[in-house]
C-alpha cells in the first residue's frame, strides 16, 4: 500500500490556531526585538528560531494545508511588485548601496534600531515563517 508522504489538513489543530500561535510568536518577537544587530545573541536567536521553523517546515510529520494544484492566470499580477522590488534592489546593490542610493536593508536598518519596531518586524517575519511552514 502506498504511504502518504505528507499530511495535509484544512482544519487547523488546536496549537495551529491564532489564539495559541499569536501569543507565542509575540513573546518570541519581544525577545528578538531586544537583541541588537551584530550581537552573538541576535545571531544565535535568529539562526536557532529560523532553524526550528525550517525543521518544522521540512519535516513531513507536521500537517500542511491544502496546496493549489495549479495557478490561475491572475498569478502574473504578482510579477509587478516582485519585478519593481527586484529591479530597485539589484540596482542599488550593484551600485554599492551608497547612502544616496541605498538597498532596502540599508534603508530598514535605522528603523530596526528601535526595539518596538524591531519587535514588530520580528513578529511579521515569524508570522510569515509560521504561515510558510504550514503550506
Amino acid at each position, binding site marked *: 500500500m502506498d504511504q502518504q508522504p505528507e499530511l495535509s489538513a484544512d482544519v487547523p489543530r488546536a496549537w495551529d490556531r491564532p489564539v495559541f500561535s499569536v501569543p507565542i510568536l509575540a513573546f518570541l518577537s519581544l525577545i*528578538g526585538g531586544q*537583541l541588537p*544587530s*551584530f*550581537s552573538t545573541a*541576535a*545571531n544565535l*536567536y*535568529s*539562526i536557532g*528560531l*529560523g*532553524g526550528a*521553523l*525550517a525543521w518544522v*517546515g*521540512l519535516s513531513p510529520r507536521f500537517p500542511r*494545508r491544502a*496546496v*493549489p494544484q*495549479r*495557478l*490561475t*492566470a*491572475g*498569478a502574473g*499580477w*504578482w510579477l*509587478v*511588485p*516582485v519585478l*519593481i*522590488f527586484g*529591479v*530597485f*534592489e539589484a540596482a*542599488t546593490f550593484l551600485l554599492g548601496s551608497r*547612502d*544616496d*542610493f*541605498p538597498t*532596502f*536593508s540599508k*534603508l*530598514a536598518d535605522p528603523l*530596526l534600531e528601535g526595539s518596538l519596531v*524591531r519587535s514588530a*518586524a*520580528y513578529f511579521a*517575519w*515569524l508570522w*510569515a*515563517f509560521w*504561515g*510558510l*511552514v504550514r*503550506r
Partner: protein
Amino acid sequence: MRLVAITGFLTALVLFAVVEWAARRENSRIPTFGDVCAYVMRYEVGPVPVGRIAVIGFWWWMGWHFFAR
C-alpha cells in the same frame, strides 16, 4: 537618488498590499501570495523538495540578514 530608491521600494510594497487585497476579494482570479508560495514550494527534483528548501531557506536568511547582520 535616495528619494528615487525610497519611492521605488515603497511603490513595490504598496503594490504587494494592493495585489494581496485584490486576491482576497470574493471570486478573485488572482491567487493570494500564500498560494503562490505554496505552489512554488511544491516543486521537487526527484525526492528532494527543492522549492520548499529554497523558499524556507530564503525566508530564514531574510530574518538573519535583517535582525542579526
